[in-house]
């Protein structure tokens, strides 16, 4: 769908933010993901957050790895430089970019394959360094582009669309991030914009590594066998369509629930996950508490969402490295090159 150009037309009465920009000014190209993909809701939440915060888009760099999730950096913030890196390696490229210019806002988008498998090492080390990035994992438990293999965040004993069990246990990226010292750790659900938008805003504002692990259902590969829009159903009713290329139209799953409330959300595959929104009394500054609450709810088969942990005193990478307050890419060559007198001294030291 990349050939479809978005109309440039703006309705004159669209509301504007402090920079005089409309929501549309923060959009990107038309998404080419499957209709109803949770990732598109996350894209919309990122657009909404940047619009609400009145961020100058050109001061944001958006980076990603490879996979469905990583494609989405093309679908928001057209005025920002974007970088689709290689599979699982976005954290290192983001680290380098951040080293070069500490003044930009960095949004990293990744998926569960990109982060929890091929890129697990880079993910851990970016956290360890407290890279100043808003790291959003669009977590659907499956490899979409290669047609539905289990990912490392898929829960043990859950099934793929062919009915096979997932034999291995899941990696909990949020739990891991807390252990590794991430300054800001949250979990959310793509269908809960009311929760997700404020979390993204907080994450962007946070000076250090902020993870938002967003559960984002895959409409195509976590599919219900009895659904009238399943592959089986369509095959029975429409023989003309190519099996792999046809993707049924679906509505985004939306969930609305209040703090402290627990709600069952039915996914496209007919299974449901139980989302537990943290209540107002939860203190996210307590690391041990954050770890134990994640473990507790996981044991009960629930997914707990919200801001899980925040360290208000973390030193971001540049503070640790003592890099200049002027971004390194803005220091003139004359100030970087020591010149002839220093070289004379050095030559003497080599005799």
């Amino acid at each position: 769908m990349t050939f479809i150009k978005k109309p440039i037309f703006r309705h004159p009465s669209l509301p504007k933010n402090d920079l005089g920009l409309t929501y549309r000014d923060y959009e990107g190209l038309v998404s080419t993901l499957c209709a109803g993909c949770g990732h598109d809701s996350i894209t919309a939440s990122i657009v909404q957050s940047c619009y609400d915060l009145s961020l100058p888009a050109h001061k944001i760099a958006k980076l990603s790895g490879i996979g469905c999730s990583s494609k989405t950096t093309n679908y928001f913030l057209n005025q920002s430089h974007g970088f689709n890196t290689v599979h699982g390696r976005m954290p290192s490229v983001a680290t380098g970019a951040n080293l070069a210019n500490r003044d930009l806002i960095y949004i990293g988008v990744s998926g569960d394959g990109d982060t929890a498998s091929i890129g697990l090492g880079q993910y851990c080390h970016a956290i360890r360094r407290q890279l100043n990035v808003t790291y959003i994992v669009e977590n659907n438990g499956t490899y979409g582009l290669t047609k539905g293999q289990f990912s490392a965040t898929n829960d043990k004993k859950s099934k793929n669309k062919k009915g096979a069990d997932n034999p291995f246990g899941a990696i909990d990226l949020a739990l891991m991030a807390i252990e590794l010292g991430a300054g800001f750790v949250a979990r959310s659900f793509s269908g809960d914009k009311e929760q997700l938008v404020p979390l993204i805003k907080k994450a962007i504002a946070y000076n250090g590594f902020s993870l938002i692990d967003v559960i984002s259902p895959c409409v195509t590969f976590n599919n219900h066998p009895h659904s009238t829009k399943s592959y089986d159903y369509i095959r029975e009713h429409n023989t003309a369509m190519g099996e792999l290329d046809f993707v049924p139209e679906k509505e985004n799953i939306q969930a609305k629930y209040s703090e402290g409330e627990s709600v069952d959300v039915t996914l496209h595959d007919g299974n449901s996950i139980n989302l537990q929104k943290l209540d107002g009394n939860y203190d996210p500054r307590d690391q041990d508490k954050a770890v134990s609450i994640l473990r507790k709810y996981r044991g009960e088969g629930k997914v707990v969402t919200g801001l899980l942990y925040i360290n208000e005193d973390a030193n971001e990478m540049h503070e640790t490295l003592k890099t200049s307050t002027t971004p390194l890419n803005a220091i003139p060559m004359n100030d970087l090159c020591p010149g002839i007198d220093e070289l004379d001294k050095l030559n003497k030291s080599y005799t």
Partner: protein
Amino acid sequence: MSNNSSYNELVLKFANVNGSGSASANTFCAKALFRMGIPVSAKNIFPSNIQGLPTWYEIKISESEQLARRDGIDVMVAMNAQTYEQDINEVLENGTFIYDSSLLRDFKRDDINIIGIPIAKLCADAYTDSRQRQLFKNIVYLGSLSLLIGIDFDVIKQLLSDQFGSKPKLYDQNIKALEIGRQYVKENIKYPLEKQVRKSNKNTNKIMINGNEAAGLGAVYAGATVASWYPITPSTSLVESFEKHAMKLRKNEDGTFNAAIMQAEDELSAVGMAIGANWNGARAFTATSGPGISLMSEFIGLAYFAEIPLVLFNIQRGGPSTGMPTRTQQSDVLSCAYASHGDTKQVLLFPADPNECFYFAIESFDYAERLQTPVIVLSDLDIGMNDWVVDKLEWDPNYKHDRGKVLNSKELENAKDFGRYKDVDGDGIPYRTIPATHPELGAYFTRGTSHNEYGGYTENGVIHAKTLDRLEKKFDTGKSLLPQPEIIINSPKTKIGIINFGSTTKAINETLNHLSSKGIGINHMRIRAFPFSKKIDNFINEHEVIFIVEQNRDAQMKKLLVNEIDSISSKLLSILNYDGMPLTAQFLIDKISEHLEEDIDINQLIAPPIKIV
């Protein structure tokens, strides 16, 4: 002194146990000889180990400046009983073998001069602390040696004072140890030896430096601000050099630094960071060796295809696999030239010595930014980690760093229709923008997927092929931009040439001098960069037979030449050395002579040199 005395032409070798403190004493010896004005070349032959294995340090001393390695040792200082047998066999007839005679040994060679000095006993008597007893053994043999071969004691004292100026106690302790060694020689041994050194004047405007030190410093002068790396022998000291100089020369008043050095979790991450920083407008580099290149290959392809500047120093070591981490080779030529999958070609620079490492380190950033592509500087362990005597480093205050085609805010406003991958100038090099340059203009999407002129995703085969063609054109643009080969015409009429690159140059020069003295003229070309300049084609076309010298098994440079230049393969005769040791001139002389003697056709192509050395 006897009439048999000869001066400043000898090979001195130390055999030690690694981790015993010998390295600094041996380097110290080389430095003292250098300060005496004598041409020297030092090679550290060390194990991939921290403590307890054999290690050697060779110093070639040559007034006539024939400084390639040679086999056959004139004076061996044997301080490792494990290797006595091997070490004594290396000593030339009439040479000298010095060993620690605290434990007397009977060596079965009567054609050499064997000197025993009870070094361990002398130290046991002089020191009570066990660590001092061990460490000062190295200084004691240095003291003995200074008398035996005639190293100027004042020069040694001055060196010590430069080194320990702020620590008088250490200075005194070292002088004491030196005196112990000298005293024993004075009282017990006939000195000096036949092979001696004396002051000379050959080192005016020379420095003693290793290639990694020079390249790290070069990166500082290049204005590099980000170094991301993963430790690997023999490249580690390059980033350490950058760090040392940057922390000293780039410190701000508020205690911050105009540089960031990041030790990554692996080579993939190291090169990823360098790519990210270059993409964002800083000059960034990484340094590695063979295994690192293998790991970095996917990212190198991204930088090639997305056209991101990148400087990568590959300090080559013995491969394949983990290979010989502490030995030298030139065996990454092909894996670097075509690093990464798909149609990729990388710019390579081949420095010959530490001096050129400094200049290539500076220029590599200019080429990377001008051509918007990875530039791999192919040094090796011999250049990178050994101390070489080279011309002092120069800096032209008018040097202007070439930042390449980067559009600023005003230029973006004047540009009609910015497209990141448009070939506006017809040289294959597009214009790029750095994030945050302009609020509304110049943003684009960087990707390793196929893209159109605006950076947009495409699966259109015609556009994809066009992009690949433009990248090829850009690569061709590099041919005239990059360092040209160094060509020496020894004989205008000869149809025989010799090609080399990198660290083998000293051995080539020595060989050509030797052959010249026998009336054999061979013209020489040293390749300094890939893609190959037109001058390289010409040199090959002008000769009928060309020797090509490489330190690898597979004749990688020959293959690269044959691959890139049409119909030349029958002219190229490979001379290959891949035992991990720096090349000797004798090896080359033997191989070339074999060809000349055995092949009548080649013999007829010889013409005498212009002047016989």
